[in-house]
């Protein structure tokens, strides 16, 4: 049990760090990496829980999360490139045409 809690806490720490990253960084790619960090934290939670519960559903879930992460990475990075093509920047401060 203690073991599980440790894992969960570690994942919470990683998740929070990821959140901080998303909230504080301006580089879209770095933000995306922080989101990946958050997803990984969730993954860790899933795996730890899966191990503890003795069923593999959590790990399967992680498998799908990874797939989704890959897909998101592909689309996201393509979006960054498209944005960069137009704005010569990947700073989210420059994504400010639309507001108010």
């Amino acid at each position: 049990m203690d073991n599980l809690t440790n894992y969960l806490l570690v994942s919470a720490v990683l998740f929070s760090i990821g959140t901080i990253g998303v909230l504080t960084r301006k580089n879209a790619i770095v933000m995306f990496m922080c989101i990946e960090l958050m997803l990984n934290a969730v993954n860790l939670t899933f795996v730890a829980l899966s191990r503890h519960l003795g069923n593999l559903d959590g790990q399967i879930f992680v498998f799908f999360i990874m797939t989704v992460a890959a897909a998101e990475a592909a689309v996201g990075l393509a979006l960054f490139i498209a944005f960069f093509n137009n704005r010569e920047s990947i700073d989210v401060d420059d994504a400010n045409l639309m507001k108010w």
Partner: protein
Amino acid sequence: MFDNVWLIPLFPLIGFLINGLLGKKIKNETVIGSIGAFAVLCSFIVSVMTFLKLIGLPAEERVINVKIFTWITAGHFNADVAFLIDPLSCLMLLVVTGIGFLIHVYSIGYMHGEEGFYRFFAYLNLFVFSMLLLVTGNNLLLMFVGWEGVGLCSYLLIGYYFHKKSAGDAGKKAFVMNRVGDFGFLLGTFTLFWYMGQTNNIWTIQFTELAKNANLLPTGGVVTVITLCFFLGATGKSAQIPLYTWLPDAMEGPTPVSALIHAATMVTAGVYMIGRMSYLFIRSPETMTVVALVGGCTALFAATIGTAQNDIKRVLAYSTVSQLGYMFLAMGVGAFTAGIFHLMTHAFFKACLFLGSGAVIHSMHGALHHVHSHDDAQDMRNMGGLRKHMPLTFLTFLIATIAIAGIPGFSGFFSKDEILWQAFSNPLHGDLNIVLWGMGACAALLTAFYMFRLVFMTFFGTCRIKEGAEKHLHESPMVIVIPLLVLALLSILGGYLGLPKLIGDLFGGVPNYLDQYLEPVFANANQYMLAHVHPEQHSHTLEWGMMAASVVIALIGISIAALLYLINPELPKKFTTAFPALHRAVYNKWYIDELYDFMIVNPCKALGRFLWKGFDVLVVDGVVNGVASTVMAFGGVIRYMQSGLIYNYAWSMALGVVAIVAYYVFK
């Protein structure tokens, strides 16, 4: 038997409709005038027939209700269009249609060539119709219809020369002041209806029903409220203090209108109404006192103003107010018959006076017109010596003046003396009697004074009209003179209908016809009075003495007038220079109009403006628009949270999550 009573108001109505709708097409003045006059003549004839039928009946059966159709029914409220024929209404019918007819005839001549001739006759007919409704209506509501109807016609006729601002103002003033009175009338009606219904389960506004059940009403209390309300109505219609100011202004209307409406008929409606509901008024001693005092005060007060006016019609107008005061004084002391008597005689001589003054004005106007002068044709200072030019007019005018001044032998003497005697002797008000009598007597003095002042200034002395105009002054046409003569005759004879017992006895027991005739109408009130107050026995000597006193008073007034305006015309000027403030105050009608403007009219307007700009626009709309703009402003602020920056958005989301989670974690 009285089935054709409805014809009486119908004829003028038809006349009104014909003249009103087709008058413009007819164009021919004679035809229009004839239609108008004929309609009233027909009414007069039917009235006379009705009158004859009525006096053919035994005295106790002389109250007849004639229902035409049901007007309004809602719940236990019911009002019919129905006529009440009794001695009082019959008398009024005769006065209204009779004098009305004469004035119609007079108007044909007087209004000759005026623009909107047809309009005038239409209105006049409408007025007669309304007045007839007023006097014959058998319930309060129908009376109110006539009541307001005559107010309307008065408004229309005062504003006949609508292009003159003063005429429009005067009309509006008359209507609004009347409305104030009507407000009282309505309240009185409501209270009476409700109170009768609630306490006795008699839900009615019909006069005969009310009279029958008047015994159920208490003395004072609610009845005081009711009667005071009604009296407020009467003060409006009959130009008593405090609502009298419209009447002098009403002289903006054509002179026949002043004669018919503002002297002979409409303004007496208040007196009539009190007479009609004498059984109510008598049950409230407080109201009676108020009525008597208001009447007395008005009589005196208006008379003072009358002494200083230069406009011939204005003098007559204040005189009317003053005479109406007498009538109320009479009603207030319980001398209902005397009041009605004075109403009748006043109708004769005041109509005569007004028509006479109309003839004078007409003549003056023509003369001034000839010399292209813009002098005021109604200002007595421009007149003088007209006796020579208009002998018949002068004669009739003089007769009427003597009548109003209260010289024995003329109608005014009998009625006025009756009132003064009653004021003095009637025990209803106890010690107040002397005061009431005193007011009446002073007013009588002043009346004699200003009336003869008028006569002297107008008909005697040298002609002060603009040079060259004098030769254009001439006697009026017959169509004008004949009504004058008839009225002058009536001014003499009218008084003999109501000879005081004292004098009647002198002539071998000639009865007071009027008293006998009206007895059934006021029986209820008189009985009540007999039962509640103990009349003191006054000696004949005292009565003779009082009579003599009033004659003396009249003579004094005439003498002063003669002294000031006939013998020594310079005196008045000295007098005015000696007391400029007093003169100015009297001349300006004691500044009552200004006072009203200051106290009521202007504050109302200011309040209206304040409510509009201050409350409606600022507060209510301010709140409405304020809410709207606050919301909009919020929108303006909140939208700036939408910074366009992703990390802000993400932070908002994270904050949302944190807030939600924190709430449930710490719950």
